[in-house]
């Protein structure tokens, strides 16, 4: 990512790109199920439709926290793309997730509460892994700043393969994809924290999910160093992997999710860290 223009463009267009990824995802998933699926721009049609709905909220604080979730996530993403400090980025991402959790807790809706509880559990599942990944990046590149990673001239994938696997294992948690979509679980808790948002206010939470796509795929891209082709390949691979997994697996419960991510993903990240030091 040379210069300043590309990151800034990416930041400004992030919701749009995320929307396209979401549209593509719906097509790919449909094709995997031998359906045709919606048009690519369907997320944007949904967006426009939602904007025209009657405005309804549970209470103001709840609606506002949803909007701030979007704003702070965008901010964290901007810092990630501009080459900021990775630990700071992770904490800012935690800030934005906290706001969503607080929003979920602020209503007296059971599903909203269950969703917020489960989102808090998923923080426990992925946060330690992310921090260890950040330390691994530091050990390889000598800096906590993502700018150093973007300019690193060797593919980081080869130097920290286990960390990449660990990231792949927690991505479904972060992206709320099966088998780890307990936080959202439409059939079970009807969307969790999202349930009480509607119309134009749901827009914020909806587009925040698009931002999360960009955020997660940027994390994946980090493993390519400055090799754009490899980065594209990694993103493509991860995209297909996440959707294939989502299509082919059943949801586990939150305990299984926590146990799996702490036992497997966390251990892999830990092992990778040790290897990075020893070698």
């Amino acid at each position, binding site marked *: 990512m040379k210069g300043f223009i590309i990151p800034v463009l990416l930041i400004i267009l992030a919701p749009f790109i995320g929307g396209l990824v979401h549209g593509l995802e719906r097509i790919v998933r449909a094709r995997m199920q031998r359906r045709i699926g919606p048009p690519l721009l369907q997320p944007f049609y949904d967006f426009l439709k939602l904007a025209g709905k009657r405005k309804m909220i549970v209470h103001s604080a709840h609606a*506002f926290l949803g909007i701030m979730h979007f704003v702070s996530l965008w*901010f964290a993403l901007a810092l990630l793309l501009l080459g900021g400090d990775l630990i700071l980025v992770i904490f800012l991402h935690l800030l934005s997730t906290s706001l969503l959790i607080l929003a979920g807790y602020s209503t007296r809706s059971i599903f909203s509460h269950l969703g*917020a509880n489960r989102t808090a559990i998923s923080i426990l599942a992925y946060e330690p892994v992310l921090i260890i990944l950040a330390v691994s990046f530091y050990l390889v590149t000598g800096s906590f700043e993502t700018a150093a990673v973007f300019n690193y001239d060797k593919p980081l994938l080869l130097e920290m393969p286990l960390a990449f696997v660990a990231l792949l294992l927690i991505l479904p948690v972060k992206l709320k994809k099966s088998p780890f979509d307990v936080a959202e679980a439409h059939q079970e808790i009807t969307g969790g924290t999202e349930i009480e948002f509607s119309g134009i206010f749901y827009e914020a939470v909806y587009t925040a999910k698009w931002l999360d796509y960009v955020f997660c795929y940027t994390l994946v891209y980090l493993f390519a160093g400055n090799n754009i082709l490899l980065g594209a390949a990694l993103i493509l691979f991860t995209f297909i992997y996440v959707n294939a997994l989502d299509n082919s697996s059943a949801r586990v419960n939150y305990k299984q999710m926590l146990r799996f991510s702490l036992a497997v993903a966390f251990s892999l990240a830990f092992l990778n860290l040790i290897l990075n030091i*020893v070698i």
Partner: protein
Amino acid sequence: MIPVILSLFIFPVITGLILLILPWKTTKFIVIISALSLSAISVYLFINIDQPYYFAVPQYLNKVVAGFDILLLIYFGWIALRLKNWKIGILSALQLALLFYLLRVLPSSHSMQFMVDKLAVFMYLIINIISGIIAFYATRYMEEEDCSLSRKKYFLSVMFFFIAAMNMVVSADDLEYFYLFFELTTLASFLFIGFRKDPESVRNALTALWMNQAGGLVILAAIFFIAYNGYGAATFSNLMANGSASGVLIPLALLGMGALVKGAQIPFSNWLLGAMVAPTPVSALLHSSTMVKIAPFMILRLSPVLKDTPVAMVLVALSGFVFLASAIGALAQDNFKKILAHSTIALLALMIMMAAIGTPATILASLILILFHAISKSMLFLNAGILEKVFHIKQTSDMDRLGETGPFTSLAITIGFMSLLIPPFGAFIGKWLSIETLGSFAGNKNIFAVFVIIAVACGGAVLAFLYFKVLGIMISRSGEHDRIPFENTGTVFSVSIYILLVMLFTSMLALPVMLTGIFVPVVSGLSGVPLMAAYSGFTLQVGDLAIPLLPMMAAIVLFPVTVIVAMFLRFKKVDRAKEYACGEKINYSFSSFYFSTERVTPWFSIIGVLCLIALLVAACI
């Protein structure tokens, strides 16, 4: 300058005495006046003292100090006899024997008994300002306490004796003096914890007493080794001067152990967890500005000689373990004060760890944590007291609907928890700096650092989860309560919370200024080498550490705006909807996850004891 410093020692004692004599009606007035003047003195000293300032007191005071020591130990021995507690008895007898021996052996001519440096004045700020607010709060809290008027006066006066003892602890250079003041804080906390006189209070007070007595014993042992190794008078500065002498690790390890006791680190954590039986201002005082802060203070004081030694390594390992373990232990708790206590122990572990590593960046992190933790924790505990007295809630599971009945209290608790968790508050900066520094250690092929990173990363995530667990029950309100006025908890309660909230937000907004104005001078004062702090563009360069300011400042704007606006913003021309509940009409009460950690917690103390043994072994090799 000496009279000003001495006034910090004497003034609170006088206030304590006056409070005992004058009628209860005047209490509030006296407390406000003394709190304000103590804060003013500490600010004055902070501005005016730059270089370490040594001073001596008349020689006859040495005899007085020794006399007080003996009296105190005899008092503890009497308590042991009266309440038939053999642990306290043995510990007091041992201390008494060792003390008599030391008084005979040690050179009787003390040079400079007190040393006030930048670290000490930094501690003055925290001790006097925060404790002043807590004392003010206590004037209202104690009104509703079920005890006689003279007991209430006695409570407040002990509070001021405690402040005096704390001011002296942080300024003592002579270890004999330090030992006395250390024991005085032990005495004060013993009196406080046993204040309510019911069997549980007495039991917990005794636990606190014997554990802190163990701390006193190791300090005496440290004095013994300093004398035995022939470093001259037993002072901190002599210990520093002999930093590379052989055998110096033994007194260091012993002093470190004393710090671990005061800091309630596992295996000594029980005394602090038991302290919650006392009236809530006591918890606020013990947890935020006094008592436990002796631990990071002692390690910081020793950090120039402690760093890079095997002892420091063991301290780091132990505190890394405690950080994770007490966060896990907290998950099983339901009592609000107990949850706060566990999180105090965890954050203290982080402070001790940072102080023990001892590089400028980590010392900075430790200081930032000390300050922010003091503000946030005192506010949380004061709110716990309000919950108790106004809302009659002690357990978190009873907090359902607090968001509707007590919106202001629930907002304050939310802000308090968030300030221990996310950017841009100090606790986050502490965690951030610790991960980055440990990362740079790991970069030097230090496998040990990896385990500490793991502990910090996991412990941080568990703490985050813990706070959400509490918030989840507390903040919910239904749509009909969109516009609710703040509850009225009374002038004193709300004023003290407002002061702390304002302090929290201003210290957060002023963080870039405070970094160069408050923290960096303390760090340079401690390490002896001036630490450079300069702005270059949008980064603040502190030593070899670059703090990016722009994202920090943006986060600083983001968070308060979110929380405060969310509280006051009302969307007009938007319809209100009922919550979705599948068409059912049932009144739900909310609760959160329950984790049973009783199976693992016994192992924690075993690991803690093993770490203590390792500490001694590391010192002896």
